[in-house]
């Protein structure tokens, strides 16, 4: 690693965490459970989603262990079905969807626009309670025996043929969906109505644009999932419905309604991560993001086009050829704005002053892995190749590249980037860089072989597979072990840093956002005085002038 670093910490012998901050303002359990402070709610979310991440991760470990051998060795095939279903449901709905928005978004969107809180603080708290409720229902489902339909709940398997806990899972996801809707609603209102004077749309940090786009998807897409789950529950209980051919229904109708949400859902998951990358790439290149307007509009374009492509999950299910053609064409279009972002981040790096602190390492990981994942999406969006690749490990590899290699890396990048602001303390740099590299290596060993497995024809969701696939599976499992270490380390050293980390000061990264212009951790009201926004986003010259002015103020104060 380069010895160069942009970190500028205060003098550790005299620096202290500010006594008055959002963590110390009030004490006691109730002050946390009944809080309306967006920063406390974000902290509650961070703890809860980390908890569910590890449950989902443990399930992933079980999957990889089972797949070490071609036969079903560890568990019955039915159990394996339950394991991968719960893994998918928990990771998608209880981790990825809320990951960046509910934690980093909740904490920093108000600060980035200069506001004191989100527009609807009580709804924000309700969102968290709905999330916790959904989590409890999910734990109940697992304890009661789980569900084995796959996270996609395809009918009539889920409505007619299986005896597992479809209803409780469906209800849990319904509740989690409303948690997501309220978060998105809150963000949209906040971003429209609570920007401080001078904070025009095109001066917003790109993180805000990305979350805004994701919020539109949350608000417009999630309700369709909600009604779909209601219909599935009704069909299971009343034994009549619109999805079962025996009654005259159409199983494809379920898939249309399900994927109408679940495709935009993948953009809900990735867009906030892309927002993080914009912030991190700019800060660690000391350069404004190249083509700000293009990146901002591409976020919105991804959101809009993301609504038009859902049936590319259904190419082999029996939709008409004409519909498949249209959806395939539209899928090609939606790849373009994502590519624009990758290009623009790359151009941001060009002639930038690059340093390799942990957030930047994760960001580099994102850019490479998301690109690979995204490109493989093009193969899948092409109907001809999709017929061969769908329902194989190619799909599994594709979405893990974008979600884990992409989104999860972006989440970790964001957590490390904003950790000093959130907690007032720096994480330990060397071990965190090591963990980032371990994660990158582990990830590639785990998931790259799965592309090959998929092309060779190994189907997904099978506990047993032909013996010729074993070598690659063993390789993948070995990688998963390394990946597990990479994810475990941050828990350990971040917790350690809460007590022993270096005091961070206001702006250890010398970043330009409004959130860095106040103390770490922030006050409950965020800012002592409402900030006025009088400069463009990512204006490092403005930051220089601020620093000089503050330096002069200090000298005057200490002299006088």
């Amino acid at each position: 690693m380069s010895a160069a670093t942009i970190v500028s910490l205060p003098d550790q012998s005299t620096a202290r965490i500010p006594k008055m901050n959002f963590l110390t303002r009030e004490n006691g359990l109730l002050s946390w459970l009944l809080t309306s402070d967006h920063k406390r709610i974000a902290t509650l979310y961070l703890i809860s989603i980390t908890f569910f991440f590890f449950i989902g991760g443990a399930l992933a470990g079980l999957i990889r262990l089972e797949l070490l051998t071609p036969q079903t060795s560890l568990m019955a095939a039915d159990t394996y079905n339950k394991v991968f279903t719960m893994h998918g449901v928990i990771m998608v709905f209880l981790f990825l969807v809320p990951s960046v928005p509910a934690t980093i978004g909740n904490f920093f969107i108000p600060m980035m626009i200069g506001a004191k809180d989100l527009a609807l603080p009580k709804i924000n708290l309700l969102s968290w309670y709905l999330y916790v409720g959904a989590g409890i229902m999910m734990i109940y489902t697992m304890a009661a025996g789980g569900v084995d339909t796959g996270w996609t709940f395809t009918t009539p398997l889920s409505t007619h043929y299986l005896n597992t806990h479809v209803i409780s899972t469906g209800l849990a996801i319904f509740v989690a969906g409303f948690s997501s809707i309220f978060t998105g609603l809150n963000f949209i209102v906040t971003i429209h109505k609570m920007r401080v004077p001078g904070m025009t749309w095109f001066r917003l940090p790109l993180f805000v644009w990305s979350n805004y786009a994701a919020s539109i998807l949350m608000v417009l897409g999630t309700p369709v999932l909600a009604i779909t789950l209601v219909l599935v529950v009704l069909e299971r209980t009343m034994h009549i419905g619109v999805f079962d051919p025996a009654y005259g229904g159409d199983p494809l109708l379920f898939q249309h309604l399900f994927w109408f949400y679940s495709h935009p859902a993948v953009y809900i998951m990735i867009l906030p991560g892309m927002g993080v990358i914009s912030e991190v790439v700019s800060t660690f290149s000391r350069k404004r993001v190249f083509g700000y307007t293009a990146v901002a509009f591409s976020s919105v374009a991804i959101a809009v086009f993301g609504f038009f492509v859902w049936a590319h999950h259904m190419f082999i299910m029996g939709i008409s050829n004409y519909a498949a053609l249209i959806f395939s064409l539209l899928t090609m279009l939606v790849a373009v704005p994502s590519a624009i972002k990758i290009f623009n981040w790359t151009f941001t790096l060009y002639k930038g002053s690059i340093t390799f602190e942990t957030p930047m390492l994760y960001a580099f990981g994102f850019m490479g892995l998301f690109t690979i994942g995204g490109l493989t999406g093009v193969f899948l969006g092409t109907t001809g190749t999709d017929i061969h690749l769908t329902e194989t490990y190619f799909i599994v590899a594709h979405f893990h590249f974008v979600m884990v290699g992409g989104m999860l890396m972006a989440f970790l990048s964001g957590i490390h980037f904003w950790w000093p602001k959130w907690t007032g303390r720096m994480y330990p740099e060397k071990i965190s860089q090591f963990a980032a590299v371990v994660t990158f290596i582990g990830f590639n060993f785990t998931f790259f072989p799965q592309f090959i497995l998929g092309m060779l024809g190994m189907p997904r969701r099978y506990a047993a597979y032909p013996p010729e696939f074993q070598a690659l599976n063993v390789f993948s499992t070995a990688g998963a072990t390394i990946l597990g270490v990479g994810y475990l380390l941050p828990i350990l050293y971040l917790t350690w840093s809460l007590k022993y980390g270096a005091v961070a000061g206001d702006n250890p990264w010398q970043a330009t956002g409004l959130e860095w212009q106040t103390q770490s951790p922030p006050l409950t009201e965020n800012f002592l005085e409402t900030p006025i926004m009088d400069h463009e986003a990512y204006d490092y010259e403005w930051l220089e002038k601020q620093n000089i002015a503050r330096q002069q103020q200090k000298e005057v104060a200490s002299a006088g």
Partner: protein
Amino acid sequence: MSEQHEQEHHIVSPLTYAIVFLALLVGTALTVLASYADLGEWQIAPGLTLFWNPVVALAIATTKMMLVVLFFMHVKYSPKLTKLTVAAGFFMFLVLVGMTLADYFTRAWGRW
């Protein structure tokens, strides 16, 4: 900004509400009557017929909806953002229904 707020707090008169109310009742009567009449069809192409009854019923329903939205829900006097939000709602609803139906309607067209 203040102009916008004057707009928002524009108080719609009870007379307007009463007229809209009556219009809605008239619309209801019309749509019931129309359902009893056979309004015929339009043969756009062989195998593609448009029946007028559902078109008329939906048109009347949509007109009633517009009256409720514009006047009872004050959208006529609301800021542009509200109007944009309502339009976005319609659009997304049409995308959901339209693109899903596009699959169903083209299945019978058979293979290439």
